[in-house]
């Protein structure tokens, strides 16, 4: 923690960056902090509660933040996948940002948890994480903690849905998505939702119905999932943000699995590795067009 605070203080005082985006104590666990002076850097914290994906603040959709000057941002390995995505898709250039990577021992599902990490409280994405030490960063801080406990919670839920008949599955998702109020919180927190104008907002024609009706909700979630195929950083923020408690990360988790099975690809922290959505290989298995 000291290391992170000192580094941030140095970056700010030397004028390298004009803001450090990190975590601070909040009313419910930790919350994103925008630190502008070296004096404030003692507010920075990092521990198992740091679940939020701060890469979202780099997106050009947050242009008002960008106007404040060059940021440094604290990222975990999973967040590094989103940063790589933004770089890959020309949303930011590498010089515009300083990346402070933190070695990570896993995070809670919910920032309000406390106590040691356990099978019950650990975030799904931490199981089998191969990016506990993010690459392609400017600074790397902290000691590498021990591996977080593993959970197969999400895997078994997905398996449960896979085992359903198509009708049952449709009913399951209908009952979940019926609750969607189309607030688009899932989109707002998604670091990979970089469109200036979401297709949901497109009129003439209006491809995705905008009222909170099952039809539109289904269309929106299918669109979101497909647009994220091979791009999703699996931060789980969509599900965490959803006021209706819809298990969105089951959809994303499944799509990520499909992409991995089909294209042998997992979103990683290297922006130079093309994602399947923007790449093709002759040896790709093309059974879907046969």
């Amino acid at each position, binding site marked *: 923690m000291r290391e992170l605070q000192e580094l941030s203080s140095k970056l700010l005082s030397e004028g390298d960056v004009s803001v450090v985006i990190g975590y601070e104590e909040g009313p419910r666990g930790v919350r994103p902090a925008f630190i502008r002076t070296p004096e404030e850097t003692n507010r920075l914290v990092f521990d198992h509660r740091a679940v939020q994906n701060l890469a979202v603040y780099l997106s*050009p959709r947050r242009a008002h933040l960008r106007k404040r000057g060059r940021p440094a941002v604290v990222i975990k390995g999973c967040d590094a996948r989103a940063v790589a995505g933004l770089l890959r898709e020309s949303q930011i250039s590498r010089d515009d940002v300083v990346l402070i990577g933190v070695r990570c021992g896993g995070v809670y599902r919910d920032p309000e948890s406390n106590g040691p990490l356990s099978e019950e409280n650990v975030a799904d994405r931490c199981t089998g994480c191969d990016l506990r030490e993010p690459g392609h960063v400017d600074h790397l801080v902290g000691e590498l903690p021990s591996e977080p406990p593993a959970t197969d919670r999400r895997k078994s839920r997905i398996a449960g849905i896979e085992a359903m008949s198509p009708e049952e599955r449709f009913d399951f998702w209908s009952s979940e998505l019926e609750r969607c109020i189309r607030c688009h919180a899932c989109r707002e927190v998604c670091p990979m939702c970089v469109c200036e104008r979401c297709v949901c907002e497109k009129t003439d024609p209006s491809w995705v119905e905008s009222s909170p009706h099952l039809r539109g909700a289904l269309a929106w979630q299918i669109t979101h999932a497909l647009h994220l195929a091979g791009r999703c950083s699996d931060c789980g923020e969509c599900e965490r943000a959803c006021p209706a408690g819809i298990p969105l990360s089951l959809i994303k988790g499944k799509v990520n699995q499909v992409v991995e099975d089909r294209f042998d690809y997992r979103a990683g922290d290297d922006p130079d590795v093309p994602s399947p959505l923007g790449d093709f290989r002759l040896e790709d298995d093309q059974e879907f067009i046969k």
Partner: protein
Amino acid sequence: MARIGVFVCHCGENIGRTVDCEAVANACGELPGVVHAVDYKYMCSDPGQNLIKEAIAEKNLTGVVVAACSPHMHEKTFRKATEGAGLNPYLCEMTNIREQCSWIHEDRDAATAKAIDLTRFISEKIKRNSPLAPISISLERRALVIGGGISGLQAALDMADGGREVVLVEKQPSIGGHMSRLSETFPTLDCSQCILTPRMVEVHQHPRIKLLTYSEIESVDGYIGNFSVKIRKKARGVDETRCNGCGECQSVCPMKKIPSEFDAGLGNRTAIYVPFPQAVPNIPVIDRENCLRIKGMQKKKAKAACGRCAEACGRDAIDFEQEDTFVTEKVGAIVVATGYQLYSIGKEQTRKGITGYGEYGYGTVPDVIDGMQFERIASASGPSGGEIVRPSDGKVPKRVVFLQCIGSREPSKGIEYCSKLCCMYVAKHTMLYRHKVHDGEAIVFYMDIRAGGKGYDEFVRRAIEEDGAKYIRGRVSSIQREGEKVRLTGFDTLSGEQMEIDADMVVLATAMQAQPGIESLAQKLSVSYDGHGFINEAHPKLRPVDTNTAGVFVAGACQAPRDIPDSVAMASATASKVLGMFSKERLEREPTVAGVDKVTCSGCFHCERACPYGAVERYEVLNRSGEVEKVIAEVNEGVCQGCGSCQVACPSKSIELEGFTDAQIFAAINAL
């Protein structure tokens, strides 16, 4: 208010047999916005087109829907008719009730209902069509020809004679291609060199042809009318401006035993060499792998090795230090004429999935040669001066066995196609042989004889009837050395007999394959190729010399196995296409191209990655103080082929294809 006319075609019986066209017209007449609906036997005929023109005039139509065959077939026809009646051609659309309906269904009622659905679909779309005007783009009226075989030469000459400048790029030290190595050519037996070399000289001397030999295409940028091509001139080791082709250097080179590529390994050449005496340009090249001096330089030896050629050269033309250089040429059209290579019978293959014929002993059993080697043996300019002798001992072979279809038509070996001209050149070989060795016996093993073409079957008959070639329908299963002889074991499929023949020489008529490395050239040009590496034509029947990239044409054996007449015909066809294109000052092209919504584009460049033609470029949006606000996509209208891939890839639907806008497609889908 839309005023749509619907015109339903019977296509003779093609549609009418399965679809009740009158019922389709009647039903469509009731659709909202449709003010006129008729059916007719042949809508594409003159009276059919007149029905459209008259209706446009009389009923004041704002849109025309023709329910008929594929737009590939007749969209142009009907758009032209529409334009003729004063309506913008893009206000005419077709719906395909033949391929998508009558040809694939049997139940008349269901097919009729589907035809109505399809027509309703398009009539909703057309309500949202807007008039489009052709796009005009600038045009560089010079052409590039890649490959200097007979195809490339012919294309270059035709275009240059037509008044246009041509850049001809050949990767070998001389132009001429395979034809320069042939002895005499079917179906007339005229001497290949005699008809080819004058053309080579003509190309060399033509004021409008810029010849770049020993050169290869490095990269291709741009689009129809405006290509920019970077060409690598490989280091020849000889200064072309100084050399006068005297040949002194060759005579002093001590490396005299290098197998000559031109003579298919039957003769030898030196390390500095002109591939053959009639080569154009008559300027030697240094084979860097075999030159003692250059090898010494590469090993950084302190003392300069050899260098005799440089001493012998009276014009100081030899330059061991020469390096590859690059030139960039701006051209408006490109003709690909890179020809073929012969299938190798041995183990080593240049293409994946292809195996050789171990059982035929090529390369291990002496006196088993391929067709090109036979050409060299029979050629007056060949290593034996045209005398038919076998390579192992220089004796005149008294019995020569020719095997057809080696590699070709053999899916298990990787090539399922017919190489088309082996039947012909084998017949030619038997004749050449019998004309020179009167007491010799020519035996041919064949699968079928494919001699379609003017004078071709007669030619094969002549070989059999006048020159006494013995044709056996069958296959040879093994070839082995038996003392002085080559023993063939085979099977005559007509008599059902097992056979064993002792021959003095065996000639294998091997398949024609695409050039090695053609894929990388094709990718530079964005043209597609088939699984064998042959360049794809845009349409097998109607556009045989176009490729799928506008402004790039294809001629000769790089498109499929082709003989000389075919190659020359294709080459002239490409020249006529290019000259036609160059007859105007600017190019007009279809307006159905993509356009980006500058306001909503977020610059993710999924479209750039999706575009198979490289049409998406980067555009900087500046703010009031001139700083870059964001970088977004922009479509180059000259390059865009209107495929729509970008439109699908764009997550925010910020890119639209004119004529196929989201609004049009959405309305059409909603009509179903």
